[in-house]
């Protein structure tokens, strides 16, 4: 567990939970544009996996990236204001909440489902060739495991033994599509067999299990034992996006039941069992609230990009002094 206590992990998850809530509020106020994909219930995977990386490792995410980004080292300022389309965002406000890049923090995400897996193989290939012990981690969903990109990337990573860890966050749904109905195998981890990789499926609501698995796989990957595919089973507590007509594909009862097992509940129960004081845990909320209030106040003041910023970097001009074409 690389010395991180469960309480620390709990605190990190709590921060991400509140960050998501804040984002939802901003979305409701139309301060976040495009669809906002909530992350409630999936914090254990973010903290467990993305939080286990070294600064120089590379993390790739997808259309539901914000807690991966923050757990992986991007600042909340940059992530939130990117969603809000401000110049202080990771992509200067040009990318929005589903596609942004933060090269300084080695974080990249994109909004085409499955497409980050092939990119991860390229990143890992370069790492290997460069002789480093860096690792690439690639987050994707159960739905993404049905894309051709998934298959091509896994095969390529496997034959070339690339230092990449593919983390399939099985949250039960791809939009309105239940995993049981759209993914042909019972455990997504059985897809490992197609590439002669280990079948690893873990409880994605158990932050300790996530972190322990991540630490182990990262270490093994650094030693050249990669690639790995790991399935972390969790549950998407909110709709796919704010406004999702959820009743078309699941009942409130199902959600209520699943809420009993979500990572914060689970971690809290365990902490209490282990003798931590409830008050001590409740006390974590205050500072987080303060921090997020300040963040949100700051965020709304940030400037929007200009038209010049939107057209300046389309490509690198061929000749000195060439201007972006209009």
């Amino acid at each position: 567990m690389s010395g991180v206590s469960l309480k620390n992990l709990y605190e990190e998850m709590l921060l991400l939970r509140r960050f998501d809530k804040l984002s939802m509020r901003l979305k409701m106020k139309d301060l976040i544009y495009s669809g906002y994909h909530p992350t409630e219930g999936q914090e254990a995977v973010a903290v467990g996996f993305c939080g286990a990386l070294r600064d120089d490792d590379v993390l790739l995410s997808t259309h539901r990236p914000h807690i991966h980004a923050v757990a992986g080292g991007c600042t909340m300022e940059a992530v939130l204001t990117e969603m809000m389309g401000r110049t202080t965002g990771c992509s200067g406000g040009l990318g929005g909440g589903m596609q942004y890049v933060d090269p300084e923090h080695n974080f990249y995400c994109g909004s085409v489902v499955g497409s980050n897996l092939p990119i991860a193989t390229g990143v890992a290939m370069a790492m290997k060739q460069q002789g480093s012990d860096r690792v690439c981690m690639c987050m994707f969903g159960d739905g993404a495991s049905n894309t051709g990109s998934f298959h091509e990337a896994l095969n390529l990573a496997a034959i070339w033994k690339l230092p990449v860890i593919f983390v399939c966050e099985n949250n039960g749904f791809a939009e309105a599509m239940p995993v049981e109905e759209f993914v042909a195998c019972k455990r997504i981890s059985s897809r490992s067999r197609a590439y002669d990789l280990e079948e690893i499926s873990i409880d994605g609501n158990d932050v300790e299990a996530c972190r322990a698995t991540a630490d182990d796989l990262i270490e093994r990957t650094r030693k050249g034992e990669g690639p790995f595919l790991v399935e972390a089973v969790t549950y998407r507590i909110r709709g796919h996006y704010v406004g999702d007509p959820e009743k078309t594909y699941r009942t409130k009862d199902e959600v209520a039941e699943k809420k009993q097992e979500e990572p914060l509940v689970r971690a809290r129960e365990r902490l209490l069992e282990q003798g931590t004081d409830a008050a001590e845990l409740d006390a974590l909320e205050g500072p987080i609230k303060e921090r997020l209030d300040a963040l949100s106040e700051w965020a709304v003041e940030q400037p929007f990009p200009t038209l010049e910023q939107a057209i300046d970097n389309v490509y690198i001009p061929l000749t000195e002094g060439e201007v972006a074409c209009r």
Partner: protein
Amino acid sequence: MPVITFGEAIKQAYREEMQRDKNVFLMGEDVGRWGSLYRSSTGLLEEFGSEQIKDAPISEAAIAGCGVGSALMGMRPIVEFMYIDFISIAMDQIVNHAAKWHQLSNGKIKLPMVIKTQGGAGRRNSSQHSQSLENWFVNVPGLITVMPSTPYDVKGLLKSAIRNDNPVVFIEHKCLYFDKQEVPEEEYLIPLGKADVKRTGDNVTIIATSWMVSFALQAAETLADEGISCEVIDPRTLWPLDKETIIQSVKKTGLCLVVTEAPAEGGWSGEASSVVHEHCFSELKKPVKRHCSIRTGIPYGATLEREVIPGAESIAGAVRELTNAPSSSPLTP
């Protein structure tokens, strides 16, 4: 006549065609439970069942392939790609297979397949969800490409596309789904390959596609007050192009502006412009002007995306530029 939305018009087309022919089915990601992203098929799963309304996994190549294979077997698939940006994953099936098999069978095989998607900017979705990629299809022999701009048109064109025996790429615009218009209750069809003169005028011909049509019409309204009379043509089908309607108009006006949301360079605007030059050279007072998006990835955010694509105001500006002709070619309606 009832006033309905563009999305509702699509649903009516689905319903009428699915009732008429059990071989017609819709397949795509969340077209069933959700009723499509913009709700153009809500309720149809209950109405027609899962044989005609099929939720498909996130497998764009397989969805397209399912269309090809089932069309081959006499079905009439409508395969939906949630965003045109994702059709990039299905291009092989569409271009190398759907577009080729009729010819490879010497006309024996028919591939009545509608490849339905939506594109364009305007909903603040950023550069991977806002592209205008229609031109990819226009240059491929064997495909018909349709871009409707109004509720009335979408219904009549979609019904024709479903009944057509060619693969038809049918591209809606994400900003049109909630537009409203009177749509007759009686059945009607709009032929593919026929342009529509959306407004008549004498000084300038504006050829605009999809969402741009509404801006062209707004611009025409503004310009009318300034004494500039615009004819607005909506080609509706990008290929085969109704050259006649366009040529007739430009022969009359002598000036032409082409408006697309896709960037100009290498886009369909070059096609339209070329056709006009080729056929109306002697009548043209000035070269055709293309007014298109700036060559950039569509930026996210509240307002920027509207600045990089044409709008009513910028269209009016382009027309003013055209009509402030040098004295050698005065405005003579």
